[in-house]
């Protein structure tokens, strides 16, 4: 029987799309179900609701960290949602990937 994986949400800055695409395809090929906005949101769909649903249904969130990530408004919105929705991190696991050296905000 093939290995079963949790549902993953990838939170990233669009400026790092090259790396994220590589990561997404690698995970997808290994059988991991990922929410990757570029592929998971259909054209014409409400972005905000789709992102919210994607985050809500995920078991794990991969954060692709870089200066761009902390500057991105959408990434900030996703972080806020995660924190508000699950402040003690009991519902979903967070895997931070350091893609580019950066300063973490004080909150982290």
């Amino acid at each position, binding site marked *: 029987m093939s*290995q079963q*994986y949790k549902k993953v949400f990838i939170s990233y800055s669009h400026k790092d799309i090259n790396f994220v695409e590589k990561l997404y395809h690698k995970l997808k090929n290994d059988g991991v179900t990922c929410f990757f906005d570029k592929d998971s949101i259909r054209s014409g769909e409400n972005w905000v609701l789709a992102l919210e649903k994607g985050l809500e249904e995920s078991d*794990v969130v991969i954060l692709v960290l870089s200066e761009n990530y902390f500057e991105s408004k959408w990434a900030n919105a996703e*972080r806020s949602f995660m924190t508000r929705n699950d402040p003690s991190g009991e519902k*979903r696991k967070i895997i931070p990937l350091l893609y580019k050296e950066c300063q973490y905000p004080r909150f982290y």
Partner: protein
Amino acid sequence: MPVPAFLLINQHIDVQTNSSFNQNYPKILRELSLDRPLPRSPQLGKYLYCNRDTQVMVFKDTFESLYTSNPGSPQFYVVHGHACQCHDLLVERLRLETKALFSTNNRWKHCVSQAIMTISLPDTGSLDTRIKLFKEKLYRKLREKRYLQNVPPQSAQTMSSVTRHMNFKQDEILFFRFIVQGKSWNQHYMPLINWIVSQYFSQDKFKHQYVVFFEISYSSLFFQMLSGYPKWIIRRSLKYKLISESCKLLHELRSFKRSDIDNWLIDHLEKNLDEIDICKDSGINKLQLCIPFLRMKKAKGLLTELEKKYYENKQIDFL
């Protein structure tokens, strides 16, 4: 306390170069495996509350029968127990239970109020002084909650007059908590309680439904003996000297029993089988720390049983 996941962010996986990404990728994949438990901490003890089912059941039965037979007639309950037994939480729970009762019964006309009016019964002076102080305190509280506006204190001498001046749009169920400290108990309390029941709420039927809780908080045994009124004397007074038949003495509030803990633990772990691994990892001692009254042998037995079930569910041989 569980550590918030976002605080662990400094423990990142380094993927800055191609080689570090390739090297770390199997680790990422392992983290995503369904076999890995989600980062939930075993919060055993977090949701362990004392069992108040008996008090709730008695209250619901009494309330329902009194309200059905005579709606609008004030109801009185006595909640008593050691000062640490959170009388206020029980009253809040009973308010919510009442709300639930009313939501399922469309024929009942009252609307359950959000606020509970709490005052401490005066603990000094003669009966007359206490009555005066009680009226003043209740008047102030009603003003504070804005149930009474522009009404002089002279016009709020009984509950009938208060009811006439209350400005509600609809008929409400109002909850009152009258607090009595066991350590200051003396012979004046019973007459005051009886006066409130028989004189202040003298009318048979009110527009609003009043539910009054007399809360007696017992102090520790040492102070009980010091005051000369140990709890059994207070309890006996409450049992035999309460004037009204509609005044219901609820069961004494007590701490949880071992059987409650056993039942709770089984129930909790059955619903959260994945926590067994964490319990095992944390060690049985930690489990006992969380629930200090649990016997080690009993805890081990319970865990083994649930562990077996866990592995059976996962179709892995239990060794």
